[in-house]
């Protein structure tokens, strides 16, 4: 089992004719993802890696039954593309694009409210259900099928933790990149709830980092509703105040966004928190018995 994505999911790639979209479409297909079509305005009739390209998402849905879409579109085009995709009835949208204006992210989130669509990102490395399918840029060989759910703000750190797990034979049900922006479309708590309800997941790992209050808020959810064990690592113990650490959302402002605040909130909620990434492996083994 898995959350949000499996080998049957009919995936659309937006921005498939661009350099990154083209290369990533190839990797996703090789991994086994059921990519049914691509969309780039003005490129209808082209093919990329044997995948038909359409002008609009509405066409892609009508012709190929696309139900999930991964975005490799430029930041300035993300807002309109998201609205078009939501209007076309696609139920999962993964925005890999970095540097989406935060006001646009708020408008997209507002537009999605009350509709049956789930968005991940912006700045999401993607989502992968190992052995089945991936939407995004995660290198497939760093993930393995298993029963651990992984939620990460960062791409590279998710790869690191998952390859550490692989070394002891542990794999993932699904690994989700929630993105590293100040306004993520889907919150950490919402993703925890999905894993909690998934019969294929025994434990969830949170790979967090400095900035925002997602982890603090998730701690409330974990304490009050979560039934499965949670292990966490939060990166950035000593980052200086007021500096953006590569991700738009990774910034400590005053007392807000520090690892100290996140770790203490999570620990109060019963989460075991690792000091360093590799320690996650032992903590997971302990919890799984």
């Amino acid at each position, binding site marked *: 089992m898995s959350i949000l994505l499996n080998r049957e999911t009919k995936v659309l790639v937006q921005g498939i004719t661009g350099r990154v979209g083209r290369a990533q479409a190839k990797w996703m297909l090789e991994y086994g993802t059921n990519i049914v079509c691509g969309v780039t305005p003005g490129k209808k009739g082209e093919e990329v890696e044997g995948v038909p390209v359409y002008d609009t998402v509405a066409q892609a849905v009508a012709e190929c039954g696309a139900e999930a879409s991964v975005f490799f579109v430029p930041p300035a085009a993300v807002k309109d593309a998201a609205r078009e995709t939501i209007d076309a009835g696609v139920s999962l949208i993964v925005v890999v694009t970095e540097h989406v204006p935060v006001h646009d992210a708020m408008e997209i989130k*507002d537009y999605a409210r009350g509709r049956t669509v789930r968005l991940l990102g912006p700045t999401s490395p993607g989502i992968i259900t190992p052995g089945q399918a991936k939407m995004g840029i995660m290198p497939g060989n760093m993930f393995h099928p298993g029963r651990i759910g992984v939620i990460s703000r*960062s791409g590279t750190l*998710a*790869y690191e933790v998952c390859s550490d797990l692989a070394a002891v034979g542990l794999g993932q049900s699904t690994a989700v990149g929630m993105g590293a922006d100040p306004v993520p479309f889907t919150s950490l708590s919402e993703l925890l709830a999905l894993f909690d309800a998934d019969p294929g997941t025994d434990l969830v790992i949170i790979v967090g980092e400095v900035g925002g209050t997602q982890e603090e808020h998730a701690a409330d959810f974990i304490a009050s509703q979560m039934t499965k064990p949670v292990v966490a690592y939060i990166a950035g113990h000593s980052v200086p105040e007021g500096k953006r650490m590569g991700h738009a959302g990774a910034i400590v402002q005053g007392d807000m966004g520090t690892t100290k605040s996140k770790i203490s909130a999570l620990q109060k909620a019963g989460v075991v928190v690792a000091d360093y990434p590799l320690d996650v492996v032992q903590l997971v083994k302990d919890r799984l018995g």
Partner: protein
Amino acid sequence: MKLYEFEAGNFFRQEGIPVPDFVIADSPQATREAAEKIGAPVVIKAQVLTGGRGLAGGVQAADSPEQAEEIARQILKSSIRGFPVKRVMVVNKAEVAREFYLGVTIDGLAGCPVVILSTAGGVSIEETAKNHPEMVFSRQVSISAGLSLSDAEEITQQAGLTGEESTRIAGIFHSLYQVFRKYDAPIAEINPLVRTAKGEYLALDAKMEIDDSSLFRHSDLQIPSEDRIATPLEKKGRQIGVTYVELDGEVGIVSSGAGLGMAIMDIIGRRYRPANFLETGGGISEELLYQVMELVLQKKGLKAVFLNLLAGINPIHEGAKGIVRFLQEHPTDVPIVARVRGNRQEEIWQMLREAGVEAFTDAATEESVERLFRILERTK
């Protein structure tokens, strides 16, 4: 991008917010002339991209142009939280009857704007929220609906304001929300907004940032970004297209991802201090890593450089050529340690080793950092 008070003040004024007339001066002499023009008493305010100016002596009143000159002489020589003061604002000193705080920012969890009014102005809103939560009134705003005048007035009335005061402040609140939207601001604040003894309403401070990711649609503003980056090395990082944050330590860091970069800081921090944070982003090329090596090695007092490169979407085999070329052209005594994993890793290890780099093949970053520690112990 953070704005200086005078820049934010100009934008606020264009949107109809009552910002008092000011003059920007970059010398004691110019400050004196400004004070003569405006008429004493005046307030001299350091223009720096950080808070806490008042406590650091960066905001002072002067009763005469001579005193203004003297104060400017001190302030222009000083640094506030590490930011050297290059300019001061000279503004007429208002007689304050009452102070308020107005702010618009983003609620990251709810994913929408939030507007905040406090009847305690002049102190930080975080402090008021902690010590006097009953004086803070906030509400989330639907970004599609916006903040109407009547929404704003509901908040001012909730805060107990009445009559003209409620109407005037609601109007300013409404304008501040417009500024926030127009300039893609993560935050726009007036602290304090005052009612003067004469019954005028004035924004005595202006704080705003513009979202860096939105700058493509604000190119008309022509705000120079160069002078708001703290250090020369950080400036260089911006120029070559990487995130470089200068730190106090002795081990340079290069990471192909931001989260991983912060984790490396944590792990190295067990025994040593990072000299910098550097994230390459997804666009690694030979040229980029050549420039990255040049940048990282410029930092004084380095004992080693640790590179952590995961070859997923990034073509690390291309980047490695840049590292090799730089080291051939600029041999260094500083040990260079690289942990590389992913596509074409064997080829990359070989290439780096031939250039004198200690290339490690460990599955976990911690194992490579342990090896780095042993190298550092040997070279002590």
